[in-house]
């Protein structure tokens, strides 16, 4: 769970009592919140040793796994909700993982940095890759190997015949429903197969 994505804004999308799989769950804060505030249960998936420890410390179930190796460990439709919060942009096989997300879960909720947010566009206009609070890395050291936009993702979803249940932008913790591709640093999509 990234500090850039408002925890409650995502949690609100997860029905109470859901079985949740959180891909790239970080320190387990979102799952912890969903368990204690929304009666959810489930697992996080993480690669980083420190995050594994943080999750165990919180009492959040966590599975240490490299998402680039796929989700073969999880059965079809075994979760109500599969979350990918600030995870997609780090994945080599982002499209496969999108399909896997809706194979394993009845609903997928994804959030990722929107490259088409207006400050990023301005930066590109000046001839430089954006370095912002939301995208704090230089082009040569960024872990964000998939840079896409709100509009790009909507297209990828439809290309994979996924139903968009809801989608909006997030900026400073606020939902942005007008011109999200321009006005929001984060894109949020709720999808079903």
């Amino acid at each position, binding site marked *: 769970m990234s500090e850039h994505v408002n925890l409650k804004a995502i949690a609100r999308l997860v029905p109470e009592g859901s079985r949740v799989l959180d891909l790239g769950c970080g320190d387990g804060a979102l799952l912890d919140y969903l368990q204690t505030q929304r009666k959810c249960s489930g697992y996080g998936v993480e690669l980083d040793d420190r995050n594994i420890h943080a999750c165990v*410390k919180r009492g959040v179930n966590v599975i240490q796994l490299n998402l680039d190796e796929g989700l073969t*460990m999880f059965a079809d439709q075994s979760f109500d909700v599969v979350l990918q919060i600030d995870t997609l942009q780090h994945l080599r096989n982002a499209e496969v993982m999108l399909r896997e997300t809706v194979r394993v879960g009845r609903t997928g909720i994804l959030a990722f940095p929107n490259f088409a947010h207006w400050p990023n566009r301005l930066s590109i206009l000046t001839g430089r890759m954006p370095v912002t609070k939301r995208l704090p890395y230089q082009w040569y050291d960024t872990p964000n190997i998939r840079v896409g936009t709100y509009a790009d993702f909507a297209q990828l979803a439809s290309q994979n015949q996924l139903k968009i249940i809801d989608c909006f932008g997030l900026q400073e913790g606020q939902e942005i429903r007008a011109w999200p591709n321009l006005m929001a640093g984060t894109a949020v999509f709720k999808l079903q197969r």
Partner: protein
Amino acid sequence: MQRIRTFEFMPLIAQSQSMYFEAPLALQSGATLRAYHLAYETYGTLNADKSNAVLICHALNASHHVAGVYEGQEKSEGWWDNMIGPGKPVDTQRFFVIGVNNLGSCFGSTGPMHAHPDTGEIYGADFPVVTVEDWVDAQAKLLDALGIQTLAAVMGGSLGGMQALSWALRYPDRVAHAVVVASAPNLTAENIAFNEVARRAIVTDPDFHGGHFYKHGVVPQRGLRIARMIGHITYLSDDVMNEKFGRELRAAVTSNATGYRYSTQDVEFQIESYLRHQGDKFSEYFDANTYLLITRALDYFDPARTLGGNLTAALAQATCKFLLVSFSTDWRFSPSRSREIVRALLDNKRDVSYAEIDAPHGHDAFLLNDERYMNVVRSYFENMSQALAGDHP
């Protein structure tokens, strides 16, 4: 039973104890063990409602001496002393920890070197074949005798992890947590093959006498040495062996450029010297029949066997919470084997956490101090302890 109070600055003092069981134990094979002793040790204090007991299960060559040292014997640390003790990841100031020696072993519990209670004859090769399930049943009898109904946790590495898993299946209402480290749902063919080489080394030693070597006053030490050598190789990783020994010679000769002795039988390389030393040490304290029995128990363990190999169906019995840990360079009990268990638990919607530690030390890593591994286990037990305190303020 007098328990020693422990302080941070004082070493934990361990006391070996023994419990006698008069009622026969029915074994998986259909045989029965007429009567038996179980050697065990306990550390820490059992709380008033007896909810803080943790059972530690041992692997091939270990015993009930899990933690602490024996009075006046500084170097007698238990085999998991880095993990268990006051202030350690499994904290004996919070938990009542029990170590138990398994049946057929050679460290105090009834085994092949003991006499059959009716005939007075030393069992030797006639000691009944015992399985992981039999050990777990015997451990349950020990808990009954100690007045403990439910374990806060059962924990083990390697073969010990198989026992922890078996506990979760055989006594689901008696276990709240199972901690399964560097283990597997069964052995692969390659793994059974290693065991068989070790067994053949022992059985073909002329001093073995069909397992009745005690009455000949000899010990099949040659076989035990080789068994230990092959076992030891499989517990390490190629990288660690290279780092530790490489191609280093034991004592290079100066009369030629290579430093080699050009001998087929001398100890030439350091790795040879190390393996021989390990083999020698082992052959002096370990029992040959025990080695056969324990490797067989490893081979036989396969909770999914009667369910057509369906581990998910087998683990449906387990209701406790699980922590699994594996180590990236462990090729004897590889991470993929632990993942099979994790997957079966996920299929059953059980609470499970899984840490795959990227450590260079092979299977041995489960006995070593890797900070990430220790931290995960420590936090897991801390949560357990807080939950126990919360339930009973």
